[in-house]
């Protein structure tokens, strides 16, 4: 059994589920779904919510002519309704080696809990939820599917996920974009510790209509390194070695570099209509969901 395999039930506990019941995934863009779903899109169409009128033109569905108006104005108007769409909700979890750090919860475990909770919200609201893991070439963990029946499968897959060697952000996203044809909301959970940078990787989301949420995961140790003294740091992914003497000055400089890095991702993302959220694994998952993601507009 892989080291990181956990009990699927531990990913979501009933108390959290109860609190998540009130939430749903909001989309800010219009997505063309294959099935009229519960999602409210800005595309007007057939649903129970009235949106506007327009002149009748030939070919329109006569069922939607407002006869009351015709009686008063002797003109034909078509009642327009907000069209409800189903939504694809893609959860992408970084499984690179660097995610396997952090106490008491590793970033990897945290990412999986977060993904499980988001999947639960999506499935409860009749969205199509799919899970993709980094690295495993061409391996979509769970294909997008609808309905609460999907939940055990999603949880099982997340629980079975393991750290993958030699993954790169860019290849993983490219694989995802190539395979997916529907667009939708993407939540990408990663620590962005990739030598090749993040820009080229994230750019690939432009090939489809995606609403991208980036959750940048950091462990408390990464934010505030508590070690002191003369150290030889070994990169978990590349094996590269870096000698440092960790003191106040270097610690300060490290914080500066980290902040600058986070800021560069955020600025890049915001400029391209993506949402960016830094997250520390010391923050409880439910607080992350109920406070921050809500504020960012992903959940409502």
């Amino acid at each position, binding site marked *: 059994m892989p080291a990181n395999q956990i009990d699927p039930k531990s990913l979501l506990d009933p108390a959290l589920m109860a609190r998540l019941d009130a939430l749903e995934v909001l989309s800010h863009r219009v997505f063309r779904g294959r099935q009229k779903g519960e999602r409210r899109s800005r595309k007007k169409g057939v649903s129970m919510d009235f949106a506007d009128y327009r002149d009748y033109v030939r070919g329109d569905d006569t069922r939607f002519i407002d006869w009351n108006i015709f009686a008063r104005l002797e003109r034909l108007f078509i009642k327009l309704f907000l069209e409800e769409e189903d939504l694809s909700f893609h959860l992408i979890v970084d499984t690179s080696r660097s995610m396997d750090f952090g106490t008491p919860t590793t970033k990897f475990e945290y990412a999986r809990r977060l993904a499980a909770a988001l999947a639960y919200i999506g499935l409860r609201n009749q969205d199509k939820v799919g899970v993709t893991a980094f690295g495993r070439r061409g391996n979509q963990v769970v294909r997008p599917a609808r309905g609460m029946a999907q939940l055990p499968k999603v949880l099982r897959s997340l629980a079975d996920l393991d750290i993958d060697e030699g993954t790169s952000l860019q290849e993983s996203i490219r694989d995802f974009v190539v395979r997916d044809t529907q667009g939708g909301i993407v939540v990408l959970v990663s620590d962005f510790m990739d030598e090749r940078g993040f820009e080229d990787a994230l750019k690939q989301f432009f090939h489809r209509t995606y609403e991208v949420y980036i959750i940048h995961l950091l462990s408390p140790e990464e934010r505030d390194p508590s070690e*002191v003294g003369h150290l030889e740091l070994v*990169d978990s*992914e590349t094996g590269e070695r*870096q000698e440092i003497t960790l003191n106040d000055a270097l610690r300060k400089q490290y914080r500066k*570099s980290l902040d600058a890095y986070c800021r560069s991702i955020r600025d890049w993302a915001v400029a391209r209509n993506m949402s960016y959220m830094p997250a520390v694994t010391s923050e409880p998952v439910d607080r992350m969901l109920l406070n921050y993601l809500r504020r960012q507009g992903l959940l409502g």
Partner: protein
Amino acid sequence: MNLFSFFLNPAMLGFLALLPLIVLMYLLKLKRRPMLVPSTLLWRRAVEDLVANSPFQKLRNNLLMWLQLLALLLLVLALARPVMNITGTSGESIILMVDLSASMQARESDGRTRLDHAKDAALRAVEEMSTGNRFLGTIGARDEMMILGIANRPIPLQPMTSDQAMLRAAIRSMQATDTQADLRDTARILEERTRIRTTGDDVLFEPNPRARVVLISDGVIGAQAKEVLAEVPRLDYIHVGETTDNVGITLVDVRESFSGSFQYEVFTSLLNSSDEDRTVYLELVVDNEVLDVKRVDLPAEGSGGTVFLVGEDMRGLAVVRLANHTDALSRDDVAYAVIAPPSEMRVLLVSRGNPFLERVLAVDPRVRLSVTRSDGYTSADDYDMVVFDRFAPAVTPPGNIVYINDIPRDLGFELEGDPLKTPRVMDWSRVHSLTPQFISFDGMVVGESLRISLPPQATSLVQTEETDLISYYESDNNRIVVIGFDITRSYWPIDASFPVFFTNLLDEWSRVRSGAVSAAYRTGSTIAVIPPREATTAILRTPSGERIPHLTDEMRTMYLTETTEAGIYTLIFDTGWENELAVNLSSTQESNIVPQPTLELPGGRQVEGTSSTTARNREIWFLLVLVILGVLMLEWYIYTKRSFA
């Protein structure tokens, strides 16, 4: 000069070979603890940035090494026992201050006085002055020195010079005074000499790096002197004196007895500075006759006193002395007081009848009062004081005059318009001797007063809003008080200020004060004497027999300042009148001769006394050890700040 002569143990310098070891240790690679991290990406950036931001990184990395090298170097130097050569610091301006106060007369166990020891130390200090380098010509700068005696005021003994012969001569001529050390005036000299005035945006007084003050003293100086010394940037203290054995008379005062009008009381206070209890016998001698002997028990480092009773008919010089007693300081074993006969004061009251004035003047035992009506007034020549009540002669006679409800027009006093009705007292002088602070004129209710314009020489004593009720005038010939209202038409005579004012007036104008039947002054104090009317010159004979001539300005108070010697001074006027003045050391500070090897200055500064300036060969290894400690602490601090902060 051989470098090795700087060290007492130069062999230890061989340990300097250890220095390369430290460098070698830094050449060895530091063992680092490996640590697996998610990514070195950001660390690499941080390290790069840190290096990019600080060009001195390499140097700073080696700071610990430099500190260790320094610590080792200092340690080796300390082991080699270096000595400091004082003459090495050349080009100094040395202000040599020698304590010449009374306690310096104390005789030490070797039979020499503290001043003798101080002279030795001062001569040594002159020896140690840098006289410049004969071989290098102008390169080695010469020290210069000034010598200042410290007594009740600074005694300049030798201005700044490099001439050692002159300095030595000045030192040999030094004599101790009988005064108490007082550095108030010296403070100005020190400030001028030890600080440099720098004028930039602000005027600042920086310590003069060349100036050094050397104080040679037994440390028996007051708290106030220590305040002055605390301001001195560079102060060396050469300490003389060891003995504490002294009993001194610290006070003699003769007063009229409260228990009966036929006796005087001679109060005495004594101080024992030794650390043993002492019993002394105190004699009172008047006119060369021993009147009384009293036993006084004094606790160790304590004080005590006794009171002698003297009959009324006893007059003349009273001497209080310790009988059959010898101690280190003899100047305070005897004290003097002059029991003067009550001086008679002939007072003429020119009045048409004033019971209040007659009463207030007649009640004073000094006053021999004559009363005449204004038409009977002819001359004031035979009187010490004349009171013109509601009358003014055409010409003001010379002498002490009081005008009441009239003015001396010939002296510039003028009337301005009608009298004032019920003037109210607004204020009065609180500094004039006739109206000292404790008198209140608030209760002075006056029916009517003159409106007087004062000449410039006059000062106002009591004022109303519009005029002066009482004013004072002094000239070469006169002392005049002008009371600008009729006291019989006021409530002043029933106010307490009335008799007090006239008593003050009589005190002031009589030659000897009432009450205090003796004049006993402290050495160093200034004695104010009112000369007799016709006197033009006077001679002051000091206790040691020196005769100091004085010119007197008739009626003007004369001031005697030559009082550095304890004993009896005689002031002889050319009119033949003689006045004896008793001057005593009367100083608990100086009688307490316990030497202070360390000067505890205000602000926590301590100046350790050295027995002499032979510190020229003082070992300084402990200074190096202190520096080493400092360096090690700094190194530890930097190390912990880098590694564990």
